[in-house]
């Protein structure tokens, strides 16, 4: 061990006043106290939130040839396949009053946003286990920042949507503004389900295997490749118990002038989403105390 200056003047540290730089950063931790969403704390860590989202974004397409082009290709290819399979092979395009490709694409973009967001949020804790086990920060930051990345993908698909709408001569109406609250609804839903799964996945890694399967099934029970008008009226209400039905229908209604909206479906979706989000965050927060112990 190389010699280091060890002489320390005898200072009684307990008698010195608190240095200026220590002031204004007081934190009280009490085993008996609990707050559902620690807003003030999250605000203090807002820069970390941004950095984590930034990291997820630039890491994603490192060492790929197409790069961010994948954000464009994925929804485009999905739309083409679904239009051909559902629209022409299955014959669902017959009698459709709107361009089938645009109808499918408006479902695809919101479904992709939801399903990728859900997957990212659900895996956010386990994917970042190294940080979770070694550093403190309000844990809700991780799922939230992983959702943010999806917004970039969504913005790119929106550009594609505009191109399609112009190509198919679809009119732009005021309803397009409704996409914002509808997107928020989709984000809330993926955050709610995602945080629930994220917390469970810390304990039981089974969810890593269950989730892709559930997302895949979700694609078929949600009207992405077809219009929910194809569902018999008697079943419409039951069908809407899948909260994504209301979201996808809402998207179509907002994008296509001639599409009609089944309002009870949208209301069911809003109520279910708020309920699921509450349960998700609540469960996540109540599990948070042992994340670092067992992750």
């Amino acid at each position, binding site marked *: 061990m190389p010699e*280091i200056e060890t002489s320390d003047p005898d200072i009684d540290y307990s008698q*010195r006043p608190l240095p200026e730089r220590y002031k204004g950063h007081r934190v009280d*931790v009490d085993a008996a106290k609990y707050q559902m969403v620690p807003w003030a704390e999250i605000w203090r860590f807002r*820069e970390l939130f941004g950095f984590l989202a930034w990291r997820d974004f630039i890491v994603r397409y*490192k060492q790929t040839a197409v790069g961010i082009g994948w954000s464009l290709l994925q929804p485009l290819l999905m739309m083409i396949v679904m239009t051909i399979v559902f629209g022409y092979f299955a014959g669902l395009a017959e009698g459709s009053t709107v361009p089938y490709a645009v109808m499918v694409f408006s479902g695809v973009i919101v479904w992709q946003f939801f399903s990728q967001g859900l997957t990212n949020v659900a895996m956010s804790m386990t994917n970042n286990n*190294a940080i979770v*086990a070694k550093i403190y920060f309000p844990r809700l930051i991780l799922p939230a920042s992983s959702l943010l990345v999806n917004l970039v993908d969504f913005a790119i698909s929106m550009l594609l949507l505009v191109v399609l709408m112009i190509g198919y001569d679809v009119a732009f109406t005021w309803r397009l503004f409704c996409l914002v609250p509808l997107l928020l609804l989709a984000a809330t839903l993926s955050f709610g389900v995602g945080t629930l799964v994220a917390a469970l996945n810390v304990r*039981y890694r089974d969810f890593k295997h269950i989730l892709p399967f559930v997302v895949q099934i979700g694609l078929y029970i949600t009207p992405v490749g077809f219009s929910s008008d194809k569902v018999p009226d008697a079943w419409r209400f039951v069908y809407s118990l899948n909260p994504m039905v209301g979201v996808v229908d809402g998207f179509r209604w907002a994008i296509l002038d001639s599409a009609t909206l089944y309002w009870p479906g949208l209301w069911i979706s809003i109520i279910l989403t708020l309920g699921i989000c509450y349960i998700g965050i609540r469960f996540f927060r*109540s599990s948070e105390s042992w994340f670092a112990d067992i992750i």
Partner: protein
Amino acid sequence: MDNFAIRVENLGKKYRIHHLPNGQKMPGYSRVNEDITRMLKSPFKFLSKKAHEEHKPETDEDFWALKDLDFTIYPGERIGVIGRNGAGKSTLLKTLSRIVTPSTGRMTIQGRLASLLEVGTGFHPELTGRENIFLNGSILGMARKEISKKFDQIVEFSGVERFLDTPVKRYSSGMYVRLAFSVAAHLDSEILIVDEVLAVGDKEFQAKSLKKMRELTQEEDRTILFVSHDSEKIRSLCGRVIVLKGGRVLTDTTDVDAGLTLMEAQTPAK
């Protein structure tokens, strides 16, 4: 007086050990079947934090990793936390860092606290050295402005200028460690919790690191909690030691040599 950096009152951390029918033990957080039954029986209770803590099957045993801790740490102190394996050092550091939540008691921290429990927390292999400095700095609690300001110093201290734009996955382990430590050494947090694994690299770099930590406390009033098994390092850095045994404070003294002797006199924990 309200001039402390860290004040800990009656702090305790409880873990649960689950006894399997065959006599083996495992950490007993929960089991799927039990969880599902509880969830179905009372879904709302299941969602509350309290229910998790109160629920205790007969096969489980409580284990206190920390118990009845009371101490105060003042700005400018360099404190060594020592003890045999299993004495609760890591749990204490993790609790103070707020990574794990205490089961009992309370603690108050004045000043920003950064925990350096491993080298390069949050380093992402795909990101370049430059990008990782920003990411890691932010994870350790630095503001972006502060990182930009200290960027050149960090790079200079680490000595990896030439590879700043190379992904760190292509770094040698030495370069990786030096870059990580450099970020940590330039944090502006008032309180640093440092695990000995951080004093890494060759002898020269280790000495440089210890010297840097010392300067931080003497010139900038920082507070350092240092955990180590190495008596030499404790002696050369710390002015006070807290000796832990079985999750409790055995001694808390400014007589570092006496504390070290006491620690060495103990029989190793099982």
